[in-house]
């Protein structure tokens, strides 16, 4: 019997390369004659380039050429180009210079004479909403494809309320209501009103977005840092307006993205365009300093929240307004945040209003759990506050408000395929020993106070309808072609496991093919939003099912008997007529041709899959199919996080003492890697809530915290030496494999468990802002808050 692959700890096949230095990330590739590009970054948050004199730079020895904004693709409106003469944030790339080495390129950048016209800028979105306030763009602060730019402001009446510390009643471009919030609030036994500030913070993946490119005739060889792979090729082709089949995209390894490199990056266009211009390979090494600017950030929120509760603790109404700080090129987090609030607290009566405001800060992008992580980290302590005020156990208030299987949420009453949030909470309660921990909540040890808290966090965790493609070659091995990216989640290998198991393969006979578009990939998801586990276990399952049918038919044709009487195991197919190796089957499939060897493809595979399949056709027995399993409702995963902290009232320091994360993400494919996602995401959430702070100078509109040491992600000493994780492990019933993704939800859970535990250590007081750095907490403890209630981004 072949081994069980689903549920086993199997190190990914690329680990050996990763730990011997052989793994090549984008900046590790070299090409003969390669030169180095450097960027000139805008020194101000909003400006127009009036004049550039590069003559001195171009005359320098070793300098090759310059690339200007008018040589790169650009579109009207709030859309990003890889170089621009109208920079909209400090650090936006203006031009690039290429030279024989990086040093010379950097010297040339500094020899460029450039004349800027400074323009008004916006750092705090509320300022842009104020009547007469500045806009991030010369032409306005809202843009629609149909009507172009407009100037959107709240009224003086709205701001009279804002300034008086009350919830305003503004009009917003996005608004939805369900149920009857007004009557529901009237019935509430308790109504809590809070203002919330959630910071914007950079992604800072460990690998900055360096990349290299060169051309061979019409073919572009691009070595990029990207979360996805197959989709990145199409994104790059779209940006450069070239035929995707003329791109050889190499993306073997990616040193993390967290949403900042979904279909590659904007700067990946620069070496491609520059190398075409100068006809030499161009390396663009992005430094950490540059990454801070061009590396994307989570949008910040300024929020008013009104939350109503019945006597027993059930949330019966929510009124939520979110002003989102969206950078110059926009983001969609606030919409998701509204949905997730409705899903997590099931109020039945809810009004949501939101506005996304352009600002002159570095560009925003989805950051792990976009929208969900912000709102959950802020609302969970408020839910616990309600528990305290109503005398309801804090665990119970999470549990009673969490959705059951029949939940309907958001303006269009979305449903879920499955939900086991309650089971995750129950399991976490036991693992954390909540009842015992509750007994030491508030305990003092000198100046230190113990606090415990819970964070329950959902996020979308799957999509459907992608293609799977695999081939059994005459060597008998199964080659699974994976168009998804390799960013550290191990999904390039793990999503092939259920398929390999279906075909009775032992893991040593499975080869994962990835990382270079010349190797042929089917239409895949972008590796984002925790889609991949679901989308590609399904797609690969479909392709394996197709392969199994073909194996049986080939065997029956060769050996006699009916196809259905043949079964596969450990590289052989056996039935009434005898047994054959799958290598022999592959040879026969090649001889039979047609669909067996992939010469004829299913009608419903995506057009992008076809040329890839044609590369492989005739080389073995091909399994190829679209995921037609279907399904009703949205696929969501959950993490329930439990944290215990010690807050030092003299220093404001918070020490995390214990953390437990329990997930509902369906079938567990790779336990060890799942645990790593639960912890990794939770710890990133804790960084978001506590250690990373991105501060701007409101006077000049420039960020101060441009590196790791100022915007510091959690290090080894920020977390305890022992953490615990668990999984509910109930398969999703609408899925052939039952697995749901896990990347996003732990971020909100880790952040919220921490913000709830800190609130507990402060006697139940919610500070309602992130990050909760020691100075912020100390100031709160001493009753002299550092910030105004709605202040964002200030130093």
């Amino acid at each position: 019997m072949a081994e069980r692959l689903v549920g086993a700890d199997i190190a990914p096949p690329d680990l050996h390369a990763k730990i011997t230095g052989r793994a090549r990330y984008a900046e590790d590739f070299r090409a003969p004659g390669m030169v180095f590009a450097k960027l000139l970054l805008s020194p101000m948050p909003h400006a127009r380039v009036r004049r550039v004199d590069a003559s001195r730079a171009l005359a320098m020895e070793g300098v090759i050429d310059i690339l200007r904004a008018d040589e790169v693709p650009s579109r009207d409106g709030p859309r990003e180009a890889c170089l621009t003469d109208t920079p909209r944030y400090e650090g936006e790339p203006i031009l690039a210079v290429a030279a024989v080495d990086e040093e010379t390129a950097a010297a040339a950048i500094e020899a460029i004479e450039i004349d800027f016209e400074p323009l008004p800028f916006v750092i705090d979105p509320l300022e842009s909403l104020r009547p007469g306030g500045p806009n991030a763009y010369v032409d306005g602060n809202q843009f629609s494809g149909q009507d172009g730019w407009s100037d959107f402001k709240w009224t003086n009446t709205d701001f009279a309320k804002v300034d008086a510390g009350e919830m305003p009643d503004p009009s917003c471009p996005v608004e939805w209501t369900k149920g009857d919030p007004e009557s529901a609030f009237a019935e509430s036994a308790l109504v809590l009103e809070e203002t919330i500030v959630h910071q914007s913070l950079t992604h800072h993946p460990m690998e900055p977005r360096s990349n290299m490119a060169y051309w061979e005739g019409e073919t572009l060889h691009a070595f990029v840092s990207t979360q996805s792979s197959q989709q990145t090729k199409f994104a790059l082709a779209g940006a450069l307006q070239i035929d995707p089949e003329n791109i050889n995209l190499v993306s073997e390894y990616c040193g993390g993205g967290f949403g900042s490199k979904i279909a590659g990056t904007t700067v990946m266009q620069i070496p491609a365009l520059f190398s075409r211009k100068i006809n030499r390979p161009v390396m663009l090494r992005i430094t950490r300093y540059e990454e801070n600017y061009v590396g994307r950030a989570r949008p910040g929120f300024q929020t008013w929240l009104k939350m109503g509760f019945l006597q027993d603790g059930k949330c019966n109404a929510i009124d939520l307004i979110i002003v989102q700080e969206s950078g110059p090129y926009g983001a969609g987090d606030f919409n998701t945040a509204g949905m997730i609030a409705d899903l997590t607290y099931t109020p039945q009566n809810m009004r949501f209003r939101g506005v996304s405001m352009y600002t002159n800060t570095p560009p925003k992008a989805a950051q792990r759990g976009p929208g969900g992580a912000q709102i959950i980290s802020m609302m969970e302590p408020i839910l616990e506050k309600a528990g305290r005020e109503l005398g309801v156990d804090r665990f119970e208030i999470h549990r009673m408000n969490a959705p059951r299987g029949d939940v309907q949420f958001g303006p269009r009453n979305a449903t879920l395929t499955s939900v086991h949030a309650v089971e995750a909470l129950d399991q976490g309660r036991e693992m954390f020993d909540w009842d015992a921990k509750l007994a030491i909540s508030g305990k003092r040890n000198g100046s230190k106070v113990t606090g415990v808290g819970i964070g329950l966090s959902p996020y979308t965790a799957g999509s459907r309808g992608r293609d799977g493609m695999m081939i059994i070659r005459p060597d008998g091995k199964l080659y699974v072609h994976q168009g998804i990216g390799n960013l550290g989640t191990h999904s390039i290998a793990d999503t092939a496991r259920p398929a390999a198991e279906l075909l009775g393969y032992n893991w040593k006979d499975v080869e994962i093919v990835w990382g270079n578009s010349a190797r042929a990939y089917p239409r895949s998801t972008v590796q984002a939003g925790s889609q991949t586990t679901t989308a590609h276990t399904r797609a690969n399952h479909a392709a394996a099912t197709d392969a199994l049918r073909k194996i049986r038919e080939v065997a029956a044709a060769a050996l006699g008997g009916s196809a259905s009487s043949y079964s596969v195991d450990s590289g052989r197919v056996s039935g009434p007529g005898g047994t054959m190796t799958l290598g022999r089957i592959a040879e026969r499939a090649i001889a039979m041709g047609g669909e067996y060897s992939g010469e004829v493809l299913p009608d419903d595979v995506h057009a992008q899959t076809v040329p890839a399949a044609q590369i492989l056709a005739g080389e073995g027995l091909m399994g190829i199919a679209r995921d037609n399993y279907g399904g009703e409702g949205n696929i969501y995963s959950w993490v329930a996080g439990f944290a215990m902290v010690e807050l030092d009232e003299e220093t404001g320091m918070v020490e995390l003492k214990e953390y437990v994360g329990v997930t509902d993400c369906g079938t567990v494919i790779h336990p060890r890697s799942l645990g790593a996602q639960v912890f990794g995401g939770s710890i990133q959430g804790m960084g978001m809530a506590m250690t990373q702070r991105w501060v701007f100078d409101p006077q000049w509109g420039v960020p101060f915290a441009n590196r790791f040491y100022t915007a510091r992600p959690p290090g080894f000493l920020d977390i305890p030496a022992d953490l615990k994780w668990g999984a509910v492990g109930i398969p999703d019933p609408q899925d052939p494999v039952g697995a749901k993704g896990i990347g996003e939800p732990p971020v909100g859970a880790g952040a919220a468990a921490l913000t709830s535990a800190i609130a507990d250590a402060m006697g139940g007081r919610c500070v309602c802002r992130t990050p909760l750095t020691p100075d912020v907490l100390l100031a709160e403890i001493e009753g002299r808050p550092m910030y105004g209630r709605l202040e964002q981004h200030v130093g």
Partner: protein
Amino acid sequence: MDQAESVSVLEKKYSRRTFIKGVIATGATASSAGYLFRGSPLLGAATYQTATERLITLNVNGQERRVDVLPHETLAMTLRYKLGLTGTKLGCDRAECGACTVLIDGVSQYGCSMLTHQVRGRSVATIEGLEDADTGELSVVQKAVMEEGGFQCAFCAPGFIMAMTEMIEVNPNPTREEARLALSGNLCRCADYDKILTCAMRAAELARSV
């Protein structure tokens, strides 16, 4: 000062001038170092500039390598761009992340924050040198990482593995707490700390048993 005023100050400050001239007013070499190492401890490390020859011999992973090195070149850049040893990663260029950790005479150091000239006559060990040169056998630390499935994106892995290699020499029998301290000079943005710690403990165990 209101925003209109700051905009006008910006106008004066930047108008018709090189945008950074006022900040770094020295010659081309120093100012390019300024761009690359903005705010770095190496900025101003010009002491090596005049007195050193450029063609030097380095001992890297037990081999003598001749290499042409600029006076202010960092070890990480020499390894990556002159010696083809791209296993040493650059995560921050400035002593904040440990991705560039190498061993100098057995002691872990940030390769981004050492000048190549500083390591002349000393032995440099990088991730590429950990396997047995003849048999390809992995080092105990690498074996431990394979067993425990350490790391996610693994961009931090070479640095951590070098730090663990030093750790098991210095403290062959660490507690998890001690291992955590020993590795706290390295950052993992994927926050795979729990598994990394398990790898470190397993590495120490393997080292004790050989």
